[in-house]
């Protein structure tokens, strides 16, 4: 098979319809021909099949009996199931279905006779109570627990009341013109970069890119000053080896031979490192309320750390699938 591979060849390759000799020839051609390799990688259903592979290896999803037990509040695997549904949309939806079913059991169909009897009983008891001397209400018992700062309580209340969290202004400042990162160079329109237009929590973030065949060098700038440069990388990611300044705004680019992507000044990949005050606040929240994923998610969102916000709110929704307000918050942040 010396000629380039056609769509039918790819189909036969994937569906195991090639003879052994043709298979070997096709495999050698794919290894040697960048164009055919690129076309193979763009197969429409390839990502679905890749996702299925990952799913098959990610560990077992809890089965019906386990999820039913979780909904019923039975012990056993409750903690591990809660963690699982924090990141598994499918299982989280199953739990929501079972919670609906449980609620339907709590609202049995009223029978008229029972309803009438209940009303009569209520009237009778109320009349009795109105004629009894009132007892003194017992003094409230004060329980000492970790008290959440009022500012955090307000942040949660406000977000839940609005059922959305708007992106902070810092993200607008960091955002490049629409499609600038992809439109400037038509040959690189498919390249995706991360982090872009976001706040990162780590002072040594990982830089990721996808869509480039060639080895690239990562350069990180603060203004015009070069802060760090990576060795040539093919893997599509590089973690900077020196800590960046909290609160600092940086831009980064990929250098491929003589070319730069994205091309400044019109197109820049900008991000900010979380400032010290916000980092301290998040650290305190995690220390004092490690299980309050809603709080941490909201604080991350307010600070512009989108990835943290999505991750924490997803975990909260996973643990509290009936919490519609939290689900709305998650959707609003995912939509940024």
């Amino acid at each position: 098979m010396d000629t380039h591979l056609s769509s039918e060849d790819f189909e036969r390759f994937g569906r195991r319809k090639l003879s052994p000799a043709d298979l070997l020839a096709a495999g050698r051609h794919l290894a040697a021909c960048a164009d055919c390799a690129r076309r193979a990688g763009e197969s429409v259903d390839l990502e679905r099949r890749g996702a299925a592979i990952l799913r098959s290896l990610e560990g077992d999803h809890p089965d019906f009996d386990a999820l039913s037990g979780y909904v019923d509040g039975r012990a056993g695997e409750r903690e591990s199931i809660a963690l699982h549904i924090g990141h598994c949309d499918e299982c989280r939806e199953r739990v929501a279905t079972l919670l609906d079913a449980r609620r339907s059991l709590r609202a049995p169909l009223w029978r008229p006779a029972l309803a009438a009897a209940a009303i009569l009983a209520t009237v009778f008891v109320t009349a009795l109570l109105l004629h009894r001397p009132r007892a003194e209400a017992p003094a409230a018992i004060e329980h000492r627990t970790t008290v959440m700062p009022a500012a955090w309580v307000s942040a949660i209340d406000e977000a839940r009341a609005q059922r959305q969290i708007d992106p902070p202004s810092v993200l607008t400042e960091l955002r490049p013109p629409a499609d600038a990162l992809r439109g400037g160079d038509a040959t690189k329109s498919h390249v995706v970069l991360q982090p872009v237009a976001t706040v990162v929590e780590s002072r040594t973030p990982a830089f990721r890119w996808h869509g480039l065949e060639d080895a690239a060098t990562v350069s990180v700038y603060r203004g015009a000053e070069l802060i760090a440069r990576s060795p040539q990388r093919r893997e599509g990611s590089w973690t900077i080896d020196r800590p960046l300044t909290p609160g600092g705004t940086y831009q980064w680019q990929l250098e491929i031979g003589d070319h730069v992507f994205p091309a400044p000044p019109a197109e820049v990949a900008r991000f900010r490192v979380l400032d010290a005050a916000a980092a301290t606040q998040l650290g305190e929240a995690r220390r004092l309320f490690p299980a309050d994923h809603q709080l941490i998610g909201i604080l991350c969102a307010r600070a512009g750390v989108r990835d943290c916000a999505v991750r924490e709110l997803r975990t909260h929704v996973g643990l509290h699938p009936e919490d519609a307000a939290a689900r709305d918050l998650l959707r609003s942040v995912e939509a940024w």
Partner: protein
Amino acid sequence: MEECGLVPCNDALLARFLDTRGDGDRDGAIEELFRIADPIIATVLARSRSASLRTDDAEDIAAGVRLRLLRRLDEIGQSEGESIARFREYVATLTFNAVHDHFRRRFPERARLKDRLRYVLGHDSRLAVWTVDARQIAGLRAWNGMVAAGNTPARGANALMRDARHPADALAAIFRAAGGPIALDELVALTAELWHVSDVAPAQEREVASAEDPPLARMELRQTLQVLWKQITILPARQRAALLLHLRDGEGGSGVAVFVFFGFATLEAIAAALDFTPERLAELWNQLPLDDLAIGTLLGVTRQQVINLRKAARERLAGRIQAFEKKKP
């Protein structure tokens, strides 16, 4: 049910397994339990067989059930708090759940309805669901253990039966009208019609990565698969072979082709990972993915050892992939 301390006693079928000393005895005992389990798994799958359940799907489901069973036996072997009171019923339930999970992705609305019905049947004092002859049967609690004899409501449905907001009352009305228990799958079909639940077309497989930013999601997926391939290449040889030869892509095909198409591995690299020549891999390619018996024959081990090898490989990979994903910015 007899209690052994705080938990029900284990089924007498597990006696040899619980008494084993040393791996040799244990492997033999597990193989014996698998010989009991296999016909039950096959029967449930055969009764579930439809145009939507392909042969390779059934094999995939069966392999998953065996793996879950092996894990459960490990838990019982290690902890006195764990037990299987009725082994055959447990295997049937595992298989029902696995079949349900398989169809859930293709027919999500119907799967959701079935989950709802199962929950209500198991929690309303008037209702029950039980297993007879590898079939799940539903009905009034007083009928527990009876066989479903093609019962259906004799006349048209009344308002109570159509009231999806009160499923327990609706089911009780349906059963009274039918006069006897109904097979669970038939009950699902009946209530789907009464409550207007339908899947217009089989749903597409969900992406693992988030759908809110498709290019970013594709990037993350590819990078995770690339890391996965690298981790596979450093697994112990037999774990690697047990995993790769069995790997499925969710479309009935072999997962190893996906690594080739993504450009992470050549055919030669895959052959090397399997300790095959490229020619040997090419001969075997059209048979992939293989079932556990065939893999065992190739590797010179028992089927149960193949399951163990793949289980170990999956646990190792799952941990490493999770560690990789935690490092994402």
